[in-house]
């Protein structure tokens, strides 16, 4: 790897370094218990975690909650203000219940925001460990391809791929997954390369252990937590991008409720009822804030430095 590439990796914001002394798990269960104990002492992270948990429960169990039909509108009850009896959060531009649409919208927004990070975590970690552990020509092939994707600002790449594929939930998931594979691969590669040069990994290799065994026993345990924390820091960006794609008319199609799409269709209502028009955006903002604060808390609980 060239010197300029090293400089670039160091310069990537949020790239996590590996603190070998503190993250080496003696027994992995004990390590995670320690992380959780430290996380419990962080009030901000705990509050955010609780809010997110509540949000997840509400959107998952939405069909069992006493909510109005999110698709049923009424031409005479359009843009009713917040606090209208029967519509606690008012109604949208087609007279549909905002509370129901926000909750059902959360299902899609959260799914579209979180799934790409999960997919990218699986693919990026695999590619990164392969590149970092095997090295050589494979490393060059994987990492130079990653470099090319880094030449696109993330939102531009997301819009480019979605724009070419066309609107739709699957296309939006595909494009965001492609957006997040390169940064995760880069982090995975750099932590794997640093673990690979540790002496006990050399010792394991020299003792004749199968490469897969070395990776499973010695590498995975050390690289997973920094990669995982880095991936959690991407969830907020991913959700904002997913909602942004729908806002642009890519992603979810009407009449399905989705926060970004709702924000767009309610734009015309800012002169009539700005609060209603702002609600979907507030949901995106609040969720993304909680995701970021929880990820920050997790990062310090795991003792991973920027």
């Amino acid at each position: 790897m060239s010197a300029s590439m090293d400089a670039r990796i160091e310069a990537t914001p949020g790239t996590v370094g590996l603190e070998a002394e503190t993250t080496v798990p003696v027994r992995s269960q004990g390590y995670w218990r320690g992380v959780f104990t430290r996380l419990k002492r962080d009030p901000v992270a705990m509050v955010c975690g609780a809010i997110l948990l509540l949000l997840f429960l509400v959107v998952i169990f939405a069909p069992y909650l006493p909510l109005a039909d999110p698709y049923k509108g009424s031409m005479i009850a359009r843009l009713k203000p917040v606090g209208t009896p029967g519509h606690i959060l008012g109604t949208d531009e087609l007279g549909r219940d905002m509370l129901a649409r926000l909750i059902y919208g959360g299902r899609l927004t959260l799914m579209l925001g979180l799934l790409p990070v999960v997919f990218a975590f699986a693919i990026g970690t695999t590619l990164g460990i392969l590149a970092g552990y095997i090295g050589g020509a494979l490393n060059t092939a994987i990492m130079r391809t990653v470099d090319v994707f880094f030449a696109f600002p993330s939102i531009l790449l997301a819009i480019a791929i979605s724009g070419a594929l066309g609107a739709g939930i699957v296309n939006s998931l595909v494009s965001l997954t492609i957006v997040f594979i390169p940064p995760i691969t880069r982090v995975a590669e750099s932590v794997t390369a640093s673990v690979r040069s540790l002496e006990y990994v050399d010792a394991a290799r020299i003792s004749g252990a199968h490469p897969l065994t070395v990776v499973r026993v010695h590498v995975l345990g050390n690289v997973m937590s920094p990669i995982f924390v880095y991936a959690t820091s991407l969830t907020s960006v991913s959700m904002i991008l997913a909602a942004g794609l729908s806002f642009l008319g890519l992603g979810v199609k009407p009449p399905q409720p989705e926060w970004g799409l709702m924000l767009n269709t309610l734009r015309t209502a800012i002169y009539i009822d700005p609060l209603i028009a702002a609600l979907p955006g507030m949901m995106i903002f609040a969720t993304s804030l909680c995701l970021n604060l929880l990820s920050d808390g997790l990062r310090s609980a795991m003792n991973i430095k920027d």
Partner: protein
Amino acid sequence: MLTYTLRRLAYVIPVAFGVSVICFLLVHIAPGDPLTAVMPIDATAEQQAEMMAIYGFDRPLPVQYAIWLGKALMGDLGTSIATGREVSAEVSRAVGNTLILAVFASMIGFPLGILFGFIAGYFKDTLVDRAVTALSITGVSVPNYWLGIVLVVIFSVNLGWLPSVGAGPGGSTAWKWDFEHLRYIILPAVTLAVVPMGIVTRTVRALVGDLLSQDFIDALKAKGLGRFEILKHVVKNVTPTTLSVVGLQLGYLLGGSILIETVFNWPGTGFLLSNAIFQRDLPLLQGTILVLALFFVFANLIVDLVQPLVDPRIKRG
């Protein structure tokens, strides 16, 4: 120094090549053929084939790529399927407006981000630090397309101080350096500046805080240096990393402006892109993305070339 510069310059070529491949493939990952969306429904198979031949879509992919690249290098990005106009002309008209917006947003976001980050890092774990940290995490968490709408509600709808959409009075799309046009750029520029400001603040705060806890700072204090001299050492040490983060964020400003331009009807590349998406005008989409990505590549190149001037370690390396 010279080796570093040459190596960095040489590194641009494969990256730019890769970028061109991805942009070329954009048209071909689209479902169906690139013309389905724009052909009239009752077009016959012969007409379809004729159109495919006119645009060259009937040849093998590598041949198409070679022809496309050759034309692109000469500044010909093809013709828009929807309007029939030259893509390069459309993009060059729009890219100026996007750059002006990005320049204004950088003038707001970067100095504030660096200042806030420095203050927070210097007074780490105080009330000031907590306030700045809260502000910066808000900045990185806010969906800026929503923030734009909120600012329009406050400053245009309620207070009536600033215009809500457009780039100039009377639907003007050409930028002029006068007071009227400045009024139009304030809201989109502020909106665009918020996220980079938050990211720069977080980075600089972490850098400064980390640096102040290092041993050599204690050594400097022990030597009897004043606060101001120590600050000079801190500035020297954090400049290189700050510069590269700023460089990355410059690219973000170019890409991130897409959504902001849609919110404010700003006649830049973002506006062009959303038209291209809406009309499924793939050559226009492809050309705009290519130009923006190349701008990003060159912005990073310039940052890397400036790097040795502020970081003497690179020269030796």
